[in-house]
């Protein structure tokens, strides 16, 4: 294609009849991208095969056409040409009309073509069919909106229902005349409601993590661990969390975002949930002996995870087991921070003596 704005325009017959004599024209015609030139009125003065194919025409047919026919809306056309008066346009997506009348999407780069004196004499550019890409984008957007709608129902409506049930059950549980045999089932119902709340919270967080543009910053790991521990304690009012770390404030940093708290919260939450003891011990340790990566381990003393479950709990799929999605969220977050995660037995070969979550991240 021409890259010189002040070049003399190619004529129709030069393109269509003389290409065997001119390797330059052969190149244009063999290009996978569509190439075109028009005069100021929008009549085609040059099109290659790829450009004509996009519209479903033979190149010769296009020379009988004005670009007006290929635009779907005059408003769109006016917007593009208004912008074109100010600057060249690179890779915009616009709709186009094919020979059969169907509508597609075009990735278009276009600029004004001038003569040797700088006077505009037409337009030229390259185009590529982007219908498949745009259709996929639209489908993705619609799927995302549907997911957001369903999550919104869960977060708002189900949480409202859960609130009503939670307070009612707690009111009943406080009744001094409540028979002892009813006390336990009510406590179990409250625990189930908390699981439901936990699931809703994590589904919302997961959606946010997947949808939100990644913008990472330097985070003090100690601060995030402390926040996560406080949050965990507020959920498990009847248990005690004893947290130990081998590092302090301002000593270890990760390149992460505000979801780093969720990462530790979900790990602590899991430890608290599956440890039958009232006092739950968790250790968070960092190893910075590698110059490039930081290793963080979270160790608990709970009931552990069998070997064949270790990978599965990190990869919850539709139809899979599990209730809280917590570890799935953790895995998403670790990957978001360019890290790795694996689960190990605290005591090798004895999964039921607790778990060590091993994560590595780039140094912050």
């Amino acid at each position: 294609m021409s890259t010189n704005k002040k070049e003399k325009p190619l004529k129709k017959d030069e393109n269509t009849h003389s290409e065997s004599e001119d390797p330059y024209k052969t190149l244009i015609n063999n290009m996978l991208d569509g190439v075109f030139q028009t005069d100021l009125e929008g009549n085609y003065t040059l099109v290659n095969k790829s450009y004509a194919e996009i519209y479903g025409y033979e190149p010769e047919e296009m020379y009988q056409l004005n670009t007006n026919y290929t635009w779907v809306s005059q408003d769109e056309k006016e917007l593009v040409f208004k912008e074109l008066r100010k600057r060249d346009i690179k890779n915009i997506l616009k709709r186009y009309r094919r020979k059969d009348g169907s509508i597609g999407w075009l990735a278009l780069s276009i600029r004004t073509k001038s003569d040797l004196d700088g006077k505009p004499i037409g337009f030229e550019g390259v185009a590529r069919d982007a219908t498949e890409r745009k259709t996929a984008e639209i489908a993705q957007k619609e799927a995302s909106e549907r997911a957001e709608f369903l999550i919104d129902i869960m977060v708002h409506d189900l949480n409202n229902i859960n609130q009503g049930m939670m307070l009612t059950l707690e009111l009943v549980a406080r009744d001094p005349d409540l028979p002892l045999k009813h006390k336990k089932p009510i406590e179990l119902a409250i625990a189930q409601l908390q699981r439901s709340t936990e699931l809703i919270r994590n589904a919302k967080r997961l959606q946010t993590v997947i949808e939100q543009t990644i913008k990472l910053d330097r985070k003090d790991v100690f601060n995030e661990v402390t926040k996560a521990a406080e949050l965990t304690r507020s959920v498990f009012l009847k248990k005690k969390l004893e947290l130990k770390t081998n590092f302090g404030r301002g000593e270890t940093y990760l390149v992460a975002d505000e979801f780093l708290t969720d990462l530790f919260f979900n790990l602590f939450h899991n430890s608290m949930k599956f440890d039958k003891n009232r006092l739950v011990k968790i250790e968070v340790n960092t190893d910075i002996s590698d110059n490039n990566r930081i290793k963080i381990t979270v160790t608990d003393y709970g009931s552990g995870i069998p070997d064949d479950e270790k990978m599965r709990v990190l990869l919850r799929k539709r139809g899979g087991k599990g209730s809280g999605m917590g570890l799935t969220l953790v895995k998403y977050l670790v990957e978001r921070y360019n890290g790795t995660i694996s689960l190990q037995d605290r005591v090798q070969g004895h999964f039921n003596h607790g778990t060590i979550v091993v994560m590595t991240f780039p140094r912050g």
Partner: protein
Amino acid sequence: MVDDDVNLQTVYQAIFSTGSIEIVAQAYNGAEAVDTYTKLNEKIDVVLMDQRMPVMDGVTATKKILEADKNARIIFLSADESCKDLALASGAKLVLTKPIRLEELIDAIEKISETR
């Protein structure tokens, strides 16, 4: 007590029908809340405010109530934690996320009402 969920309002009524906390008035949207607060503000220690409601949302209602009485104490009680920053910016003293445990709710109401 401001919430458009009729069932929840019934639960709140049952909970606070005994004990030291009394529901002075109930409103089912932000506009009703502003109107009711303006009439009864002498009797109200704390407003519990939902965010997502018809007619007027909780953040707007909070701003209007605070315009009428800059000493109003408003606790947000919303199912959606994403409104937290907006609620605090509008002048809410505290933001709680539903579902909340009864003990935590009572503690929050008592703590905020003591700031009078």
